[in-house]
Structures are given as structure tokens and as C-alpha cells.
């Protein structure tokens, strides 16, 4: 079986540092195996660049199986590329056509400054979590795990929210660069579970305000975040965040 190969033309955002001016550079990637992942294609391009004495394209990636949330950039205006429920590491060249021109840009948001090329700084997400994305329990003796009963339905729903990998695609795709889906998912997970209820008022308040202080935009209920989310987390999590916030506004404590 002769392996069919393909060629694509890349327009890649190159930016040497956070303070420098970026620009698009064009590359042609030839003899590609359609079964390559998008990142493997970039690996091949980078090997050629290194041999040619040029600086390889910087991008972040780690697990390369769609769970760590490290990779991600915008391909032809779509976060993580055109396939739904997918990170770029799980996007394959076969979803492109031979001869395609592909424009690659980093996540663009004030709160995600570019470090280099396609690499951005997502520390803002960690600060949102540290503002309240946890149950305040220390390590130590705890009641038996089965002493807390949680119905399967609630547990499954909480899991759906907990599946977030923190990749930042929601922010990248949102016309307002809002982090509401990320923040809402963690608030929802913990608000659904009995373990998270005691501090839900404090949590939603602190996380939402942290999200604001980080400079993310506001949610306009457009829902593109859900469409690009590799874990297909629903914007119902945002609605839940709003209910939690309203509840916190009206609560006595």
C-alpha cells in the first residue's frame, strides 16, 4: 500500500517574546502522513527549521492524548481546530485537504499574554482556582467515604463539570475573552456536591471577582466556548454560576 502524502501551507504567528511585535511567517510542510497529529506535523516542520539553522516554532504540549490541557492554539479562527471535542494534539492532518493554507495563532486574550510564538501564559486560571476552587479540608482523618451519599445523577453531573482540562480554549474562542466557562465549571462541580456546599457563597464570590480582576471579559451568552471545549462542557455551568452568584448576593452571610 503506497502511503498517500499531503502538503499544507502554514501561516504561523511568530513572536519572540511577550514584549516584542509578532508577525506571520509562512512555511510549507510537505510529504505529510495524513495520520499525523497536528502537533506531529509541527514537530516535522520544526526539525526542518532546526536543520536550516532557524528557530523552531514554539508551542506547548505535554500528554498528547487530550487530557493535560497544555496544548492549544487557534487554527483558521477555531480554537483547537475544526473538530469538536478535540484538543490540537488529537487533531489529525486527515481533517485537512492537500494544499490547504492553515493560519495558526496563539490564544489571544489580555489575561493570556504571549510568551513566545504560540505559547501563552495561563497563570490567571490557577489564580482563579486558588481564589476558591476547592473544598477547604485538610489532610487527615476523615469520615468513611461512603458516609457521604451522593446520588449517581448528581455525581455524574458534577463529573461533567469536573472534566475541564483548563486549556483555555473557552477564553480563546469567546469574542469577549471571557473565562466564564472555566470558572463556572469549577463552581458548578463544587456547588452540586454536598462537600462543596458549606463554602459556596464565599467560593462563587471570590472566584468571580478574581476572574474579573484578571481582566477577562464578560459572558455574552454566545456559547462558542462550549462548541470549542475539548470536553464539551455545557454553558449551563455558566448559568449555574450566575444562580450561585445571585444566591450569594442575597445570602445573609
Amino acid at each position, binding site marked *: 500500500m503506497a502511503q498517500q502524502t499531503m502538503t499544507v501551507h502554514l501561516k504561523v504567528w511568530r513572536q519572540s517574546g511577550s514584549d516584542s511585535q509578532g508577525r506571520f511567517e509562512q512555511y510549507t510542510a510537505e510529504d505529510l502522513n495524513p495520520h499525523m497529529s497536528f502537533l506531529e506535523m509541527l514537530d516535522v516542520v520544526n526539525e526542518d527549521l532546526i536543520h536550516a539553522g532557524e528557530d523552531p516554532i514554539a508551542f506547548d504540549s505535554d500528554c498528547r492524548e487530550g487530557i493535560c490541557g497544555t496544548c492549544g492554539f487557534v487554527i483558521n479562527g477555531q480554537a483547537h481546530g475544526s473538530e469538536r471535542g478535540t484538543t490540537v494534539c488529537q487533531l489529525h492532518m486527515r481533517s485537512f485537504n492537500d494544499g490547504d493554507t492553515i493560519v495558526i495563532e496563539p490564544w489571544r486574550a489580555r489575561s493570556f499574554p504571549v510568551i513566545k510564538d504560540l505559547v501563552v501564559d495561563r497563570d490567571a486560571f490557577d489564580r482563579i482556582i486558588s481564589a476558591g476552587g476547592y473544598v477547604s479540608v485538610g489532610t487527615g482523618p476523615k469520615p468513611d467515604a461512603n458516609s457521604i451519599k451522593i446520588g449517581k445523577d448528581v455525581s455524574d453531573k458534577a463529573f461533567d463539570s469536573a472534566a475541564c482540562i483548563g486549556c483555555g480554549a473557552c477564553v480563546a474562542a469567546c469574542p469577549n475573552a471571557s473565562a466564564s466557562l472555566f470558572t463556572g465549571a469549577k463552581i458548578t462541580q463544587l456547588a452540586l456536591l454536598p462537600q462543596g456546599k458549606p463554602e459556596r457563597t464565599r467560593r462563587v464570590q471570590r472566584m468571580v471577582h478574581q476572574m474579573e480582576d484578571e481582566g477577562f471579559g464578560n459572558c455574552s451568552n454566545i456559547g462558542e466556548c462550549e*462548541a470549542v471545549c475539548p470536553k464539551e462542557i455545557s454553558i449551563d455551568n455558566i448559568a449555574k454560576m450566575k444562580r450561585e452568584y445571585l444566591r450569594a448576593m442575597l445570602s445573609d452571610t
Partner: protein
Amino acid sequence: MIPLKRALSSPVGRKFVMSISGIALVLFVIVHLLGNLTLYVPDGGETFNRYAAGFDAIGPALYVIELGLLAVIVIHIGWGITTALKNRKARPDDYAVSVNSKGGPSNLSLASKNMIVTGVALGIFLVVHIWHFRIRKIYVADNTEIDGQQHADLYALVHTAFSDPFWVAFYVGAMVFFGFHLRHGFWSTLQSLGAMKPEWSKGIYALGFLVAVVLTVGFMGIPLYIYFLA
């Protein structure tokens, strides 16, 4: 408890303000359209003028209501503009290839992306509209007699305006913006208040389309009806 000032400027709280003021405005607009339907009565404007005269009966309280309405509008616009500015600031460098929807659950559309554009356009329209029919009703309109009392002949004002193709085009155009704004806004108010369940979402979004079409067609029909038929 969250300090009200902080809450109302927070990403969530500010959308509550937008939603509640938005709902108030939609309700007003529905009442406004119901009243204006009298313009479709082919009686030379008598029913309409009678309806308009009804407001005079309210007396000075009308000003209080109008000022209240104006406040809601100002709040809606004010919060809307500051929200949009914050959103713009959240992405100082835009994409070379603008966001290209992945479809599915996304409501990314001309309507949803351009709420601030349609909103600002409607704000400008409102100024013109208030001057055109509310201010000019006081200072420009002739009088007409209804049940032995003098009232402004608002119908004449409307009729004159909508005999002019410029004004017809202006109002019809404005209503296009209105339709787009409502198309996303109706659903958005509910989602922003958290009053949404995933299973309702699609239905409400479709209902938003229906509401937008009915209200838009209702309003848009008036200048066209008067221009072509009355």
C-alpha cells in the same frame, strides 16, 4: 453577602443589570407595539389619536413614568457600553482570522457578536425617535379635537413623517437593528439570570427568534403600511 456596588460591576452582576433592564424594556416595547397597532385601523387616525390622548389623562404622573423608563434605558445603555469596553480591553490584539464558529451548541452569529453595535444604533434611534414623536408632539404637533377636548394630532405627525421615504427607510432600518438585538437579547437575558436549563435552552433560543420577528414585523409594518396604504 456581596457588597452591592461590587456585585453590580462584577462580570455576573453587570449582566443581571443588563438582563433585568432588558426584560423591562422588552415588556415596554410589547405594550408600545400593542398601542401602536391602532395605527393599522383605517379610520384616518381617529383610534390612534384617541389612544394617544389617553396618556394625557394620566397627568403629571406620566412624566414620572417616562423618567423611570428613561432611567432604565440609560442604565441598559450605560452598563452595556461599559461591559463592551471591558470586553474589548480583554482582547487588545484581535485574531487575524476572526473567530469562525464550530457550530453545534454555539450561538455565534451576526446578532450575538454585535449586540453593542445594534445596541448603540438603537440608542441613536431612540434619541431621534423621542425627538421625532415625543418632543415634537409637544412643540410641533397641531391640535385635534377628541370628545370635545383639544389634544395633539399625533397621527398627523406620524402620517407626515411616514409619507417621507427617508423616514420610512430610517424606521425600517432601525427595526432591523432592533430585530437583531432582540434575537440574541431575549434568550440572553434569561441565560444571564441563570434562569435557564439545558433542556430549555434550544426552545428558548427559538422562541427568541419568534419574539424578535413578531415585534420587528409589527413595528416595521407601521411606516410601510402608512407609506403604501394609508
